């Protein structure tokens, strides 16, 4: 049993038991307290769901806001306009860049260049640190312009947007576009150049799928095992269970471990990545089979989403934004939505009574779905631990946990 693992989102410890050199037992123990977000929403009005659920997580509030908004819209019979969809997609692209660049540079990179913290990294590798600043600034600025704020968005609500960016605000993003793309390319090249611990195993990958584009806003769920289902069928496919030793829930694909997140999206949707991104990744071999490759997958996605955001911003600058009225609810029933969060597929479900108050709520976060596979992988990295001291073994284990990019605050909402 260790202390809380540093440099991950939320507090978690791990417990591994070695017997005759074999990993006998491996457990991830969430140390966060349960905030019962699903229960505190009961009795509240439908429009409060996106406000409160965005507070589930400080690193990915936007995805909770948008997923809750879409689920509430489904429960209220609201169809979002095409402009609303595009603005939300831009917010989600920015969310991906924000989360991936923070994770890659501040949490993962120190492991690969031998720095103990992001502050040390800043002194030893200022040029790399600059990449993180440029990318994060770009993403934060996009979220400020579209969502009103970099953490916990304000404007995005069921039915549309409460405020629209002015032309001047959109133009203020223009000078950031070139440098963001440049740094995204450098990031991809940097993380492709690292040597990752080599380990291969069979694993099921699961992500949103869309026939025409790289799915992250809407779609059906596809798995590499061959399952295809609509978001509202999630309860039939994803089983959640509680373990006695941790407050975080464990989610499986009908009992099988699965991996979600960047690596799954790349494995299932590589063909739909942007042409520029594909060109840069031509010499990598897909699909990825090594859990550590979730790191390079994030760098690939980071590039894809910078280009996606850039194109959307250029389109909005060219055509301007139109002020639309919020679309009102037609009726109150129940609704589900699934979006791709930086760490994998996020599900929100709401049931409303005839006064528009929430009477049932269910949220399944990505980390919940990937904890069982992380525990499984902690066992298969055994060959990497051979002949190492306890401290060195802990470093490898921590690196694997960090590669999964778990978010314990989300997992124990």
């Amino acid at each position, binding site marked *: 049993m260790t202390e809380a693992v540093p440099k991950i989102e939320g507090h978690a410890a791990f417990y591994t038991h070695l017997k005759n050199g074999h990993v006998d037992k491996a457990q991830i123990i969430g140390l966060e307290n349960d905030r019962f977000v699903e229960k505190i929403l009961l009795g509240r009005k439908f429009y*409060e769901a996106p406000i*409160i659920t965005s507070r589930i997580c*400080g690193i990915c509030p936007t995805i909770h806001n948008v997923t809750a908004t879409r689920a509430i819209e489904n429960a209220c019979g609201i169809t979002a306009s095409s402009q609303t969809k595009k603005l939300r997609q831009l917010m989600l692209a920015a969310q991906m860049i924000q989360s991936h660049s923070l994770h890659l540079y501040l949490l993962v990179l120190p492991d690969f260049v031998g720095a103990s913290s992001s502050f040390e990294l800043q002194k030893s590798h200022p040029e790399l640190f600059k990449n993180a600043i440029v990318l994060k*600034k770009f993403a934060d600025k996009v979220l400020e312009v579209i969502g009103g*704020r970099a953490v*916990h968005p304000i404007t995005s*609500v069921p039915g549309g947007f409460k405020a629209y960016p002015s032309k001047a605000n959109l133009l203020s993003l223009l000078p950031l576009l070139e440098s963001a793309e440049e740094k995204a390319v450098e990031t991809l090249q940097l993380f492709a150049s690292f040597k990752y611990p080599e380990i291969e195993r069979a694993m099921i990958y699961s992500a949103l799928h869309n026939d025409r584009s790289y799915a992250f806003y809407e779609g059906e769920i596809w798995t590499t095992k061959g399952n295809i289902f609509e978001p509202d069928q999630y309860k039939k496919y994803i089983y959640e269970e509680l373990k006695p030793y941790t407050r975080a829930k464990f989610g499986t694909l009908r009992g099988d471990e699965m991996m979600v997140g960047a690596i799954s999206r790349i494995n299932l949707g590589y063909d739909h990545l942007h042409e520029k991104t594909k060109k840069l990744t031509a010499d990598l071999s897909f699909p990825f089979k090594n859990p550590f490759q979730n790191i390079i997958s994030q760098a690939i996605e980071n590039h894809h989403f910078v280009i996606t955001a850039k194109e959307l911003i250029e389109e909005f600058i060219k055509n301007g934004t139109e002020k639309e009225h919020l679309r009102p609810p037609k009726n109150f029933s129940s609704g589900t939505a699934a979006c791709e969060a930086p760490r994998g597929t996020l599900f929100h479900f709401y049931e409303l009574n005839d006064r528009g108050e929430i009477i049932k709520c269910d949220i399944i976060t990505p980390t919940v779905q990937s904890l069982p596979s992380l525990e499984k992988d902690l066992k298969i990295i055994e060959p990497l631990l051979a002949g190492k001291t306890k401290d060195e073994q802990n470093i490898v284990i921590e690196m694997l946990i960090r590669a999964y990019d778990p978010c314990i605050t989300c997992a124990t909402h």
Partner: protein
Amino acid sequence: MQKKTLAIFSLTSCEGCQFEALNNFEAFSKLLQFFDIKNFRLGQEENLPGPFDIALVEGSPEGKEQIKLLREIRKSSKLVVIIGACAHLGGIQSERNFLPAKLINKEKIKNVSSYIKVDFLVPGCPINHKELYRCLLDLYWGKIFTLPDLAVCFECRQNENDCLLKEGKPCLGPVTRSGCNSICINNGESCLGCRGTTPQPNILKMREILGTMMTEDEIDKLLSIYGRIDQNSNLEKND
């Protein structure tokens, strides 16, 4: 220049205030001229025990371990600064205090000042990084950090927004502490009170105005999104 020691602790919360603190990373790294970060689990590997000159505390304490940690932080720090609505008001999770026991049977969530003496506050959900940097610099130079005492309405008027209450829409601007530059109203949302109340809020009058738009129960729910602001805003120890 003599550096002061800083620690950043996170209790039960979304950790968004820590991310907001890192929001302007360039400015945050400039702060490192003034501070040595001795404990910050989110950002670094080596985390040392106290004493600290300043401890930032995010989140509401829950469970024996976190309460114990909080008391240790108080003992080992010259100044304790709480950041964000969870530490200040209890946060969204404190709504459970008002739910029926058959739904949740857990200990009540109390804010940080119910357990220890708090020296300074940077409020909001999330905090504003500029306000946090100003607080840290003020404290470094030995100045007393103060928050504006006026209501959000003051800043909202300066930003030339139309009054939501006059339009018949609920808004907590008149009783909420300013300093956020009325960011929510500028973006089309009403003020939901995340910064807690002004020093002497007229809650009765606020309830009376809201009473023309919503039921008593709805008013209670509005006042408690981030923790009952009419009960928890004061930094004096409650019990």
